[in-house]
């Protein structure tokens, strides 16, 4: 089944015209970390992100290097020249630290500006299992390669426009795995009662 964002004009704004009454985003203040081991794909995807107006695209070749970068950028002091990362785009399979290992590191981190980072997982695999693994490890979005302008933009916009609450259970931490804009018609199998849910609202 195609991702809802891949169906032209159905659930995404990316194809709207200039005259439509929607906010036009300016991504110049966003900093994206691209983790991709293929040099050709690095160049292509980084260029695509820049064509969307993304301010800074940092590129590295594997999960291990990404961990090093995030450790520095997210620990920056106020007023520092170092820019914090806003979104991580990571390939799935890489010899120098896989996307899933990176995702696990991010979601298990203590610091809020790391563990809540939006992560978009890129994969050359097309199986449902991969998508389920990405979701169950806390990815916000998954995108199957080869990418197109519309699919990449759609995932970025989804991360901006439709952030899901994070859920912490005994064995999961990540964005709510149920997309709230999609009606669930099956039987209610939830075991958790409302009073067992602790809700945290971030304050400014």
């Amino acid at each position: 089944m195609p991702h809802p964002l891949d169906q032209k004009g159905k659930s995404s704004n990316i194809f709207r015209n200039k005259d439509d009454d929607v906010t036009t985003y300016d991504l110049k203040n966003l900093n994206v970390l691209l983790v991709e081991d293929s040099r050709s794909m690095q160049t292509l995807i980084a260029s695509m992100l820049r064509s969307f107006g993304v301010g800074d695209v940092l590129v590295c070749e594997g999960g291990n290097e990404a961990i090093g970068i995030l450790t520095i950028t997210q620990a920056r002091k106020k007023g520092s020249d170092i820019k914090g990362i806003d979104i991580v785009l990571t390939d799935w399979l890489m010899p120098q630290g896989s996307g899933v290992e990176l995702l696990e590191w991010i979601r298990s981190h203590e610091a809020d500006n790391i563990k809540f980072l939006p992560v978009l997982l890129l994969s050359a695999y097309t199986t449902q299992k991969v998508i389920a693994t990405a979701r169950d490890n806390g990815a916000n979005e998954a995108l199957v390669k080869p990418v197109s302008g519309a699919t990449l933009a759609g995932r970025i916009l989804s991360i901006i426009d439709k952030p899901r609450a994070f859920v912490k259970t005994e064995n999961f931490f990540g964005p709510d795995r149920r997309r709230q804009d999609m009606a669930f018609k099956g039987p209610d199998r939830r075991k958790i009662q409302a009073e067992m849910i602790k809700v945290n609202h971030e304050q400014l």
Partner: protein
Amino acid sequence: MSSSDNDQVELFHRINRLKAKAGGDPNSSHEGALEPGMIEKADELIADFCKDCDTVVKHVLEKLSAKWKEMADAGPSSTREKLAQEVFTLAHEIKDIAGMCGYTLMSDFGESLRDYIIETKLDRDAQRIIVQAHVDAMNAAFRHNIRDDGGPAAQELKALVKVAIEKHS
């Protein structure tokens, strides 16, 4: 149902800083869009990338073939694991680039090779025959410009790889 600490679920509703940084209202549910033309520009980048496809695919394929030869000649040694990792990376790259450039068959061979390398240490001669069959099939597909997996030539290459896998696994 009894409740315990293990049943505890926490929900975290975060301020949408990303939306604010992009110029939207973080408290609004209205969705935004990119400037018209940006998607087309990104697609043009893909089209430009694909213009050089043959050169890029050829380059990666040559690198893969050379690295594989180096590994096959190396024999059992400490460098073999490192070389196997490089062969894996190149197979992965072929999968991505060939797929994007319309070489579906080669992309499938790249994926098959990559997945095979994950599962094995490539320390038996029989396993090396399987890798060699993949590399030969990819080179043949490129040399004869066999792009998709529909024609008889493509079927023949697929059959050769399949036989190698079945016979030597």
